[in-house]
């Protein structure tokens, strides 16, 4: 069952869509464009390729509950 859930998340990641779990958060695949970044250490300029990153955004409810327990 866990595997099938992972599959759903995987499929959504490949199609750049999101999986929302109420009161917990959203798994989201975000595409970043390629960009030129200055490396502070070497001073060289790097061309970063575009990439798709799976991100998780905690829901407001989860944030609230976790912050409450933190206090």
């Amino acid at each position: 069952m866990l595997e099938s859930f992972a599959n759903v998340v995987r499929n959504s990641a490949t199609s750049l869509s999101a999986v929302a779990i109420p009161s917990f958060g959203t798994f989201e695949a975000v595409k970043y464009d390629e960009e030129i970044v200055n490396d502070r250490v070497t001073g060289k300029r790097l061309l970063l390729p575009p990439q798709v990153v799976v991100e998780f955004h905690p829901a407001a409810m989860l944030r609230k509950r976790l912050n409450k327990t933190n206090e």
Partner: protein
Amino acid sequence: MNKETINLPRLISLIAEGASVSPATARRFLHDLFAYVENCLADGETVKIDGIGEFVRSDDSANPVLFKADADLAAIANEPFSAFSAVTLNDDAVAEIENVNTPAIEQAAVVEEQVPEPQEDQVIEVSEPEQPIVSEPVDEIEEPAQPEAEVQTEPIQSEEDSVENDEVVETAEVPAPVVPEQEPATAPEPVLDEAGTVEVAKPEEEEEAETAPVENGLAEKPDDENHAAEQKEDTRRYAQAPGYRKLRHRDYSHNHPAQSASRNSSGHAMWLVLGVLIGLIIGLIGGYFAGKTMQAYELPDDDTALLLEDTDLLADADPVQEVKADTIPVVEHQAVAQNEAAEEVKESAKPAEQAPAKAAEPVYDTITSSRYLSILARDHYGVKNYWIFIYQANPQLGNPNQVRPGTRVLIPARESFEEATKEQTDAKARKLLNQLAKKYKF
């Protein structure tokens, strides 16, 4: 963004379907799973779910959960771009990249919008029979992705080539009807022959299909450097990615230095031309009115007539001398005394004709901005100071320093004011001038 979100009911049904359990079980499973994860997070623990990733508790209240995707999941998500790694650029490479990236990406974006649906079908038809022939051992994950990538790349490449030579595009469209008629086994062969550079690469492996047109592009543009070629290749590969369609098309023209410079310069030129035009129009209008007013002052109708009169006067003076000159040869034969007598006779005869004419018609002249009273006096009498007599003959003038141009004045005959000697005339003029100076305080 029209990002599709899988909501809870759909997620439950998907899980139930995938794990072949009842939806209620899937719902309970999800509930328990995330309740457990939340509890662990509340305790400050790190939770790792296989195939999903790690949830780490952080102290940041705005973002209390840090999520790190599982390596497997991250690799799958990033699969379209997995071939790339960060490239170190030379310091002077930026301009090149912008030059190369801008047209390629813009073209790709335009092409994607323009690609008609039937054309995609054609390409799919062509590519489908290839796979059994090639019979390459391909990963299961890649296989579904491949046709999609083909569909997207083929139109793009053919379009890009069409910019350089139209023939290729025409031939590229030809094979579509050819394929279904022939047997699937032999189908690719004629396609290869007929199609140009693009189709030649098709039955080969995917990598070659990608690189071949790029190399063609390189050959046709020899001045591109290797670096530029890399960038071009990169941008084409990016275009293959399934997510590329959703890529918001940036307006690179803003960042493009050359383009923006040319736009600026053209704008400047436009403003310059506009300013010059406006200046010209204003100048013309102003000049027209100024000329009109000046004409009103300088050249009234009778002015020219009076000038002609002046020349007549001069001409009147000349004939006397001419007559004298004429008479001289005649007179030479006679004695000197006779000569003098003859001259007198001639002179008396001539002025006799002219004097009545002069007395009959009074001389008028017009004051202009360049011909004022003293100049008139100099012209008519040879003495500037005699303007006072002209002034006296024209009582309508008022202040002699404020006579308006265009005023017509009577030029009195010299005899009317001339005294016996020049000194006396001058003294008279001076006296009158003094009176006038007292009157008008100059």
